């Protein structure tokens, strides 16, 4: 198991190197080049010349890339044009918000998707089966931000059940030791602050979780349909195993293999979706900050955030692969 993890971590190195080369080239391919990208609206020929000398843009490209890589390794991802703060710092302060949102979205997707897909497969042709099909269609055809609009309009603007924007009500006074607002509330025993933060997560979480819900439901349905007709399930049934044990140990456990992979693959989708959902709900995570940096052509932020998001994405996939080994004994034995 440890060997697998180390192996996968080593494989990350060429991927990240390749990505850093692409992003290095990307800034140079931007209209106006890297200096324009760095200065944005503050562009003057004098400032440009100064920056060019300072950044060593007159040096050969490989030397420039080497320096860029060296800075990355020291944790220097550049400075945001909007805020003037280091990109890495901006990422770290906002990342907890996005993690909270992603967790709520995943809980929603998995909590409904797996039971829905399971029942749909077990009762093929029933109303639940048909509704699972409808849900999975909505999930793949409705744009995330349109869904976010609609949820916000119905449940926040019209009905007023949930707050419309932000992570916490402006009137709420709370301390934030970890920047995970719900967790902060629980740690400091400020229950109303935790509840308030949670309420702010519900609508964006549902909007963000709908596509993964559709995919998870669909995958579960397909996997369970296949497994429940397998020979070993028939044999187990013939041997008189109790239905409850048959369901949990023979059908569900085996059907979960492809579902776990699917859930892992959703993380990329969630990070993409977070850009849109967070913007609609003015939720200050990495997504809305990234969307803002697109609006304002804040290229250092885009460059740094894309690299950091790719790292997160790769690490999550690694965790999924490892957990795959935990579920499937066949994979464990191979290593």
């Amino acid at each position, binding site marked *: 198991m440890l060997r697998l993890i180390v192996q996968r971590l080593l494989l990350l190195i060429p991927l990240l190197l390749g990505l850093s080369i692409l992003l290095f080239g990307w800034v140079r391919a931007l209209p106006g080049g890297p200096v324009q990208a760095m200065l944005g609206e503050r562009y003057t020929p004098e400032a440009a010349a100064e920056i060019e000398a300072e950044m060593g843009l007159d040096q050969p490209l490989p030397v420039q890339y080497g320096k860029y890589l060296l800075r990355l390794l020291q944790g220097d991802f550049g400075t945001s044009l909007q805020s003037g703060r280091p990109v890495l710092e901006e990422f770290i302060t906002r990342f907890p918000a996005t993690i909270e949102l992603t967790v709520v979205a995943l809980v929603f997707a998995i909590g409904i998707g797996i039971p829905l897909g399971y029942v749909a497969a077990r009762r093929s042709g029933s109303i639940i089966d048909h509704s699972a099909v409808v849900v999975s269609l909505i999930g793949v055809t*409705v744009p995330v931000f349109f869904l976010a609009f609609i949820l916000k309009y119905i449940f926040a603007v019209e009905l007023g059940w949930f707050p419309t924007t932000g992570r916490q009500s402006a009137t709420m006074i709370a301390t934030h030791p970890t920047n995970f607002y719900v967790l902060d509330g629980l740690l400091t025993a400020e229950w109303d602050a935790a509840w308030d933060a949670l309420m702010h997560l519900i609508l964006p979480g549902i909007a963000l979780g709908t596509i993964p819900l559709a995919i998870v439901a669909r995958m579960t349905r397909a996997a369970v349909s296949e497994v429940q007709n397998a020979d070993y399930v028939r044999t187990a049934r013939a041997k008189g195993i109790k239905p409850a044990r048959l369901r949990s140990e023979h059908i569900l456990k085996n059907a979960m293999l492809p579902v776990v992979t699917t859930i892992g693959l959703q993380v990329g989708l969630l990070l993409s979706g977070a850009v849109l959902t967070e913007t609609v709900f003015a939720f200050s995570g990495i997504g809305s900050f990234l969307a803002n940096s697109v609006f304002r052509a804040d290229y250092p932020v885009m460059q740094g955030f894309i690299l950091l998001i790719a790292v997160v994405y790769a690490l999550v996939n690694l965790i999924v692969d490892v957990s795959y080994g935990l579920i499937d004994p066949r994979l464990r034995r191979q290593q």
Partner: protein
Amino acid sequence: MSANELPVTGGPAAEPLHTSIHGDGPGGQDHGGEGVWARAWRTLRKNPVAIIGAVIVAVFVLVAVLAPVLAPYGGSELPGRTEVRPTMIPGPSAEYPLGLDRYGGDVLSKLIWGAQASLLIGVLSTLFGLTGGLLLGLLAGWFGKSVDFAIMRLVDLMLSVPSLLLAVSIAAIAGQSSMAVIVAIGVVQIPIFARLLRGSMLAQKGQDYVLAASALGLTRRSVTMSHVLPNSVGPVIVQATLSLATAVIEAAALSFLGLGGGEPSTAEWGRMLTAAQQELAVAPRLAILPGICIAVTALGFTLVGESLREALDPRNRTRR
């Protein structure tokens, strides 16, 4: 799987089509000499889901093509400019069946012109992605070894960035124009098509008929072009149909993020949806109408694509 439910495929997407496109396969005896595509067509015609999807797509294409005839006003015209007040946006009336928007444009006309814009973006970007992906996939599948390795690592690299972010970064280089959006969405699709075609071709390479063709002394080029490739395109065509749906949605997302250029009053669904965000409490129809258009169009392409996938899947053949 009965005909009236949605196809749900759990297995590998690139399931090879075992029968030759020209010849007859073991499953096709009852319709002697029938090819994969003829069989797929026959299955599709009987599938209500496919028909619903096809009708949606047909209506969408017709509206897009006939926009100059159907739309009461031009795409950039603002006929009701004088009637819009900062506090009031006129709703549906005899003159403007779906009302006006913030800028005084006729919502019905803009939706109709928007169909044209979306279709153009969808088709062109998918063609772009398809061409790029086919080229890379073909090179990888043809040469194998080091070429294959290099291409697949590039594909991995592109897939390591979430698709929307990749599209955003490409649009940033390509500048503010609808062409930039097409290129951005197209490039994002390249790795998907490349990987699909390569996998499909690899699966075909080991087949007996390919060995037979090589043994008969056919050159690698003619084996690849006239045997392996035609039998590998099934999953690619399915993916292309599904990509049309994704492209329409992604184009809207890029618009939402302020990419794509042009006036904020441009007759494009994503742009209309974005502009409507400010008027959500005053005139929700401004957001709901273009949103529904995007969703229904995407639904049409998805239904057609999924039905096609089901019809081409050899595992479904015996259960006919």
